[in-house]
């Protein structure tokens, strides 16, 4: 935002970081991401409370027991919360775009992804979106076993 101290002769030392990471997915996350590459979205069910966790987790965070079943969810679901970004943030996508938390049919929790829809008029787009609005997970043609292998669209 505003800078109260622009008129300064202070010395500044610049530096750039570039760091490469390789994150180990482990068996549960790995199964889920490989499923995405094959066009499947699956949650994990707790044998105790029957919660279907999305994103999938290897243990139930409420019952503290291992989850034991993969459950297909979606491809349709309901919007739970969203925002429409109008500002460019460094190293993040060019606006406008919709970030949407959707609860896919069969899941008990909501999963975030981009919701692709016309955004010529942001206010009008915001009025179209309400908790409960129906959405569908749509897979990309080229997939890479990543969460970006699909996105949401309005039904």
């Amino acid at each position, binding site marked *: 935002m505003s800078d109260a101290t622009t008129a300064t002769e202070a010395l500044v030392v610049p530096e750039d970081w570039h760091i490469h990471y390789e994150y180990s997915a482990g068996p549960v996350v790995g199964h889920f991401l490989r499923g995405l590459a094959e066009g499947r979205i699956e949650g994990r069910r707790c044998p105790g409370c029957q919660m279907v966790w999305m994103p999938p987790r290897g243990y139930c965070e409420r019952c503290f027991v291992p989850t034991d079943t993969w459950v297909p969810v979606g491809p349709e679901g309901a919007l739970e919360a969203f925002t429409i970004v109008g500002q460019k943030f460094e190293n993040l996508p060019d606006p406008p775009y919709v970030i949407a938390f959707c609860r896919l049919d069969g899941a008990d929790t909501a*999963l975030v992804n981009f919701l692709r829809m016309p955004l010529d008029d942001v206010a009008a787009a915001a009025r179209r979106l309400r908790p409960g609005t129906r959405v569908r997970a749509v897979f990309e043609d080229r997939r890479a076993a990543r969460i970006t292998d699909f996105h949401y669209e309005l039904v």
Partner: protein
Amino acid sequence: MSAAVRAAIVGVGETAYRTHHPDATYPELAQAAGLAALAMAGMTPADVDAVVYSMAPTHFMGVTDAQLWAVGPVGGRHKPLMRLHTGGATGGSAAEAGYHHAASGLHDCVLVVGADKVAETRDAQFILNLIWDPFFERDFALNTVTMAAIQAVRHMEQYGSTEEQMAEVAVRSWRRAKRNPRAHLRGDISVAQVLESPLMSWPLKRYDCCPRSSGAAAVVIASERVIRERGLDAAWINGAGALANTVFMGDRLGPRRLTDMGDWDELRGAAATAYRQAGITDPARQIDVAETYAPFSINEIMAVEALGLCAAGEGGPAIAEGRFDEGGEVEVNPSGGTLCANPIAVTGLVRVCDAALQLLDRAGGYQVPGAQTAVATAVGGSFQFQTCMVLGREPTGGKS
């Protein structure tokens, strides 16, 4: 659980908050606040038994684990020193840990200190995006602005809160900050200006959002024994609560949710603990000042509701009607609050500082006359950590 001994804040130190502090390196900034807090208490670093260092993500200022750099300058050499990090809630957690150090009876005099330089890199929101996991959530541009916007959408849907009510929060914060010489942003803005400011993330506009600030803050927390021996002025810590929740915001949505993204249930829980310790049963009547960690306008609405200063859903109308203005039953964010200065690593500590200053009659232009009880909150992570501290002019809890 009650405290083994009573403890209080006897010194407060802060720098001014602004985008850059080219006048000081990072540890020099922390040192300035620490020495100022000790000076108010009539102490020197030699009087300090332990240091709690308040530092959130270090990628803003660009030195991994910056507390290492600060040990010497803040007087931590040859003393126990721990760094606390609960995201935005860091300063609240650091104050809580400092209080626990003293209230346990194991340390008589604790320095809680930290600093941040959020604008040392160009876009803090990219770094904030890195708090999310690389498999499920990081790819979707989540950051503090977008997650606050998502909360606002939920609050609007659930309670009918409006963009105008959020704008009223910003107008009031900027106006109050005119009285605070340390505030980063201040001035007279109108509801229309807020509504017409550039869209950040719907429904939040630019003036609904806090700035990226640099600055430092510190408090000295002493045991009752030291306070009586030295005859110190004290802002007594009568209650401290904290609560953590899952990072996954999607777990806080849907019919089987335990808490809702549209409510600050985590703060409600933290406040319940602090209120119980402090004997607060009717917050709106018993609390005179609330310094809430509200980096976005919607968050102040959620905070006054979660603190029980009004009913759930009434926060927007209550603020717009002026119920929490100067002279009201409770004054909320008389300093201008987080919306007018957000040095992330210490913002929660700044809330504690501003609450303590009220009880020490040292708040200057934003002093709430005769304030007896104040509350300070902090929030962090994916709005998943909340802390709440109740301070009083008189001790009400623990053993004497």
